[in-house]
């Protein structure tokens, strides 16, 4: 029974970490049909920015978090201005933006590598110590991550459902042209969505690196896993992707415990293939009819 709760605890933490990065990706895909392949590099950038502010400049943790989020949100806007914006209305946007963001991500990763070096660094934005509840060991950091993820998800849901900006984002996602005709400034919405996604990537990068360590290429694996979760949920489904992230986190924890860490990624992939063959639109995806 203790093992069960231990797996549940670590699975939920994993799921929370995944949820933060997945929601950013799902938001961008839902709003503008764009797969942002530089998300992993943004995560690394966020982690390093927090490290730089706290260790390099000696500022408190809140400042580290804030700087990381702001810098990554800025880079998100930059991606809109330099890459996504110019090609938005052109033919084959989905394919081209996919390739261009791969290039941008590689560039960003090399810049991080040059600036901070290839040695792994510890993430200072982490809390040591743990709680033991009925023989289940819970690191405080994990609880913090869970709480952070819940607060962030709630805030995002509130933003999307209740605010004026959220309505504009949802309207643009449903129908870009209709939204424009209703006076929504679509360009602003896209830039904002990429900024939010960048900010979420920063938080996600900090949480991922607080569980392992900072490396320039640390974002690659979490990004691919986030994409797997997006695909399982159905690309662009924001609430669905949170559920899927928690489920995948639990699944991964179970596989790591029973089969071994080595096979966790491979079994995730197997799962996604099964899901896609069963439901090509994803579990929460709507079936889209082909319009002639």
């Amino acid at each position, binding site marked *: 029974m203790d093992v069960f709760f231990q797996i549940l605890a670590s699975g939920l933490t994993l799921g929370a970490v995944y949820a933060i990065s997945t929601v950013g990706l799902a938001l961008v895909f839902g709003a503008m049909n764009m*797969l942002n392949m530089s998300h992993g590099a943004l995560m690394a950038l966020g982690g390093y920015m927090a490290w730089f502010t706290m260790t390099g400049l000696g500022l408190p943790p809140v400042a580290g978090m804030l700087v990381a989020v702001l810098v990554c949100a800025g880079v998100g806007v930059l991606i809109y201005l*330099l*890459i996504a914006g*110019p*090609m938005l209305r*052109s*033919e*084959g946007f*989905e*394919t*081209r933006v*996919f*390739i*261009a963001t*791969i*290039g*941008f*991500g*590689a*560039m*960003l*990763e*090399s*810049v991080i*590598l*040059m600036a901070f070096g290839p040695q792994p660094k510890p993430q200072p934005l982490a809390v040591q110590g743990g709680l033991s509840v009925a023989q289940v060991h819970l690191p405080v950091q994990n609880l913090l991550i869970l709480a952070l993820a819940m607060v962030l998800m709630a805030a995002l849901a509130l933003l999307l459902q209740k605010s004026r900006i959220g309505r504009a984002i949802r309207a643009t996602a449903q129908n870009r042209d209709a939204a424009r005709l209703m006076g929504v400034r679509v360009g602003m919405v896209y830039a904002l969505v990429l900024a939010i996604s960048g900010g979420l990537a920063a938080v996600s990068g900090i949480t991922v690196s607080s569980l392992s360590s900072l490396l320039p290429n640390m974002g*690659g694996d979490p990004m*691919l896993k986030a*994409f*797997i979760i997006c*695909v399982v949920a159905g*690309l662009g489904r924001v609430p669905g992707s949170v559920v899927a992230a928690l489920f995948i986190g639990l699944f991964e924890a179970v596989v790591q415990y029973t089969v071994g860490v*080595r*096979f966790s*990624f*491979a079994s995730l*992939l197997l799962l*996604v*293939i099964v899901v*896609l*063959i069963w439901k*090509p639109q994803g579990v929460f995806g709507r079936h889209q009819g*082909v319009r*002639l």
Partner: protein
Amino acid sequence: MTAMRRDLLLCGLFACAALFWPMISDMRYSVTQTTFFFIWATVVVQWNLVFGIGGIFSLAQVAIFAIGAYVTAMLGYYLGTSMLLAMPAGAVAAVAASLVLGIACLRLYGPYVALLTICVSQVLYVLIVNDTDCFTNPPSGCMPLMGGVRGFSRFGDLGFRDWLGAGFYIGNYYVGLLLLTAAILFSIAIIHSPMGLAFRALRDNPVYAAARGVDRFRYQLWIFGLSAFFTGLSGAFYAVNTGVVGPVVFSFQHLLFLLSMIVIGGIGTVWGPVIGAAVLMLADEAMRELGDFRDIGMGLLLVACVVLMPRGLTGLFQDMARRFAKPADTEGAT
């Protein structure tokens, strides 16, 4: 002159010109680099068949290439198979792997295919690198089944070393040239075949094509499998040419390098990938001195090309040719 005749003529001219290169250039480095160009160009020409002609946004081509290389190296290493036999075996294994992958992912569209294929190649990479159980225990140290991080070396060559001595790399050069020429001929044949027409129909008007009995899934599976043959063969030749096969062939940087070739050259054209491969090899060479800035330069080049010239270099050439040709046309009309 039809388009097919023109392409065949260009292919012949290219092959003839390349025949003399090792005689003109007496630098070993430039000859071996050209051999690598042949290998990469072969992969990209086949990838272009899948991506540009078949319209499948697959990123599995590098994994298929790696499967060809690994099967060849493993046959040579474990069974001592002659490379002349192991290379076609590697290519056939690549075709089989690609058909299985195709059946799994061709039910999907666009970015879903890209995500699934990229995940497959990353998983293969992770599985190989994390494998630390010894399969055999040669004097050189523990050897996992798939070679682990170290990969395979000393699994045989094509026999040029015994035959040509120090000039063995020239033998490899001509094998590479043969491979690329065959791959280009194959690509020309596919593009101008009924299958190429079927894909054009599917692109121009998917519903009408489907109504006339063009089965998208079947044709895409065909092109997925067919293109895997030369991709696997080039992987096998890569193994023989370098003498080492490691997990680096699966790496993301490698994928990015090849993807840049196809994008910069021009997706969906016969010659775009070849031009792209040449341009990127030269750019890579030029940036070699820059050290850390090289990766940044490569990324910048890719982003700039995708944003500024959507149809690649061949598209740019076509636009320029049209601009020059236009005044002459209007003169003729009046």
